């Protein structure tokens, strides 16, 4: 069976280049699975978990804001921030989530910008926890 070729790049460096059988992306309109021979696709992506399986082994990445391009079995993922699930410090992530929730609760209604920022933070910590969870 044809294989997908996955590349993850951030502004600083190329994080990963590998073959994969199946990839799930946290698309902005919902989760999105990609198998070989997918149509050419360009999508923007929110915060979430990207996972791919290769020979039955699943690897997960926490992923925050970026784009994915699917073109002839070549998937290129551009992200501002990527963390491998294994490398995530769960305690810190939980702590960050708790803090963000706390601050959101006491936030004034008219501080829209700050609210957006906090919500983004919360989302980030959630996807971190999600990515780190199963492997532990």
């Amino acid at each position, binding site marked *: 069976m044809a294989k997908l070729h996955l*590349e993850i*790049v*951030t*502004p*600083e*460096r*190329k994080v990963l280049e590998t073959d994969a059988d199946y990839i799930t992306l946290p*698309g*902005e*309109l919902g989760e*999105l699975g990609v198998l070989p021979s997918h*149509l*050419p*696709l*360009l*999508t*923007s992506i929110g915060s979430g978990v990207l996972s791919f399986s290769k020979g039955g082994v699943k690897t997960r990445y926490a992923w925050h*804001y970026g*784009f994915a*391009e699917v*073109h002839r079995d070549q998937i*290129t993922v*551009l992200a*501002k921030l990527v963390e491998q699930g294994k490398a995530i410090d769960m305690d810190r992530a939980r702590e960050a989530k708790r803090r963000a929730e706390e601050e959101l609760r006491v936030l004034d209604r008219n501080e829209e910008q700050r609210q957006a920022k906090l919500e983004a933070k919360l989302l980030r910590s959630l996807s971190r926890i999600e990515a780190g969870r199963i492997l532990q």
Partner: protein
Amino acid sequence: MATLKDIKLRIRSVKSTQQITKAMKMVSASKMKRAEDRIKQARPYADKLRQIVGNLAEGLEQDGHPLLAKHGEGKTLILLITTDRGLCGGLNANLNKAVNRLAEHRTKLGEEIEIIAIGKKGHEFFKKLDISISKVVRDQRESDTAKALDEIMRELIQDYEKGAYAKLFIAYNHFKNVISQEQIIQQVLPLEPPQEETKEKAEQMEFLLEPGKTEILNKILPQYIENQAFTALLDNFACEHAARMTAMDGATKNAGEMISSLTLQYNRARQAAITTELTEIISGAQSV
């Protein structure tokens, strides 16, 4: 004429300077290597982004997105990236002069110029001139500078969408190779979509866009512009270290030449002193 002791002291001081320049050269060499690696690692992201933007923006009208729209009249901003530290040859001076020429030219045309100074050397230069500086980032670590730049770019993009200014340029040094750096003054806003090579064009197909073209453009264009500034900064870092390395290499060589000419002088003076002493002794002995 300088006495023997004077010359000896002089030689010693030049030698210690030479040791410093030699050490600086080696430090810069390793920093340059690292900066160069960072550029290389950042390249895949920048290339891919440019390719996507090129594909997307093709056939897009000027009013297709606020960042592509030309504002006509208004301020011109120049984001000037220089180094914080000196001792790197004419790197900053050349760039400052080039930017100043552009600024003068544009002022003559009746445009208002504003400088955003990243790095101390550019700030110091334009502080003395009659050009307004709106923001300054200086004397920070490299990683903090990158963060501050990110923040500034975000604001600049928002301001542009609001129509606060008409044009944005980025001025920086481009790392061609170790011995040559090139000053680049590049227009960033209004955004001119990058032209793709013909080969890429032939492969291009209809992409499925999710959620939609406008939404994707809204996200990817700011990202693209921020990334341009980020790569410019990385480029400038590499230039800084390369230029310093070359400058320090030259300084070390000059110090070496100076030491050898001073040593020659020292030996001559020593020989002269011995000769005088001998003549004195001989003439003293003869007179007895």
